């Protein structure tokens, strides 16, 4: 079977972001989605630290330590973007004004519970940032992750064993092996990579999976 590369996953998520959407891309892999948004589409990227209309990284030498994203990397502001303080920024999330957020995850349950902030291991120093606000605030929460851990365990689970970020908040998971909708009815596979069968996916994840009538091949 053909595992999708990280770039392919990012391009796949980008395809589902319509023109005019207000979007927050989480730290790490989700940040890559920005590179695949068509430039001719007006899509509004929000960064939790107080900007809307976030543009790409600046040219070398043009970095500004006071113009950064949530990952504290230098960014630019698009023409028409603006700045605001932290309470207004999180009002955008919590108040349901963001259309989509894209987050990484340790685990997602078939009912959309998300665990992505803390391994819960003894000695681990927890850090949550804006993950909990984003997960429950955006109208739709997408997760981007490899379906399996390096040890081959499924990150799509019946019940999260890691500490939760939010309950029933994820609607869709974009993985290296396919795209899966999750929610109150459970998990439903929408797309599979070429060469992967339904039975194989059931075996790999070990969770109950429904399948869209017509599964697309990613």
């Amino acid at each position, binding site marked *: 079977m053909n595992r999708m590369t990280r770039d392919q996953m990012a391009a796949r998520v980008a395809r589902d972001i319509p023109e005019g959407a*207000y979007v927050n891309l989480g730290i790490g892999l989700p940040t890559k989605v920005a590179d695949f948004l068509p430039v001719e589409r007006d899509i509004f990227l929000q960064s939790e630290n107080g900007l809307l209309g976030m543009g790409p990284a600046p040219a070398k030498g043009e970095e500004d330590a006071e113009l950064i994203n949530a990952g504290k990397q230098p960014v630019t502001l698009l023409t028409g973007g*603006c*700045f605001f303080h932290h*309470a207004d920024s999180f009002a955008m999330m919590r*108040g349901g004004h963001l259309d989509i957020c894209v987050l990484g995850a340790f685990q997602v349950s078939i009912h959309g519970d998300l665990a992505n902030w803390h391994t819960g291991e003894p000695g681990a120093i927890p850090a949550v940032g804006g993950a909990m606000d984003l997960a429950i605030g955006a109208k739709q929460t997408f997760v981007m992750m490899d379906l399996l851990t390096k040890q081959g365990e499924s990150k799509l689970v019946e019940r999260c064993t890691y500490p939760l970020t939010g309950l029933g908040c994820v609607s869709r998971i974009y993985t290296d092996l396919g795209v899966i909708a999750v929610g109150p009815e459970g998990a439903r596979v929408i797309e599979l990579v070429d060469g992967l069968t339904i039975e194989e996916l059931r075996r790999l994840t070990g969770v109950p999976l429904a399948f869209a009538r017509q599964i697309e091949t990613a």
Partner: protein
Amino acid sequence: MIDKSVESAEAAVADIGDGASVMIGGFGTAGMPDQLIDALIARGVGDLTIINNNAGNGETGVAALIKAGRVHKIICSFPRQSDSHHFDAAYRAGQIELELVPQGNLAARIQAAGAGLGAIFTPTGFGTLLAESKETRRIDGRDYVLEYPIRADFALIKALKGDRWGNLVYRKTARNFGPIMAMAAATTIAQVSAIVPLGGLDPEVVVTPGIFVQRVVQIATAATQPMAA
């Protein structure tokens, strides 16, 4: 290309239906979106719930909406004024329901709606008629009343300038409820004196980011409003 500008006030309010809840900006007449309200009156819809600081002044704006018999209920802080005769008449005739809210609680409840809070404990109104039968709690030695968010289907507001992404700046005390109402309504419609090209508003001085605004309509008015006689 996203362009939130709409060609007319009529087009901007064309989907406001009977029974809608509508926030209307303005403190007295400052910041009152008169042309949007006129368009709403012309549409002929009724049974509206209006959220505004007052209940109309003189003959225009919210007063005209009340006079036309379109308002079922009004949520406001200061209905009775020297020039609120249309409200006074409707209220005395039992034609309009009034929910009186202290002004700061009105602002805080609107802001809570925009920010997605479920409820807030506010000290204002504790021990008064306006908190009767409301839940209260003593926190750190001070008494508070539990108040719930006020949200709306639509917000009609007035700003000075806007752009096609919906970014807004205001003028002087006409700002008042505009920025928080924009955050608390499902659909926010702003009338502005001028729609400027994208980039025409300094990103540091935008007061309402475009995410909170769905439609912008340019209504040419003098930048400085003469006082009514």
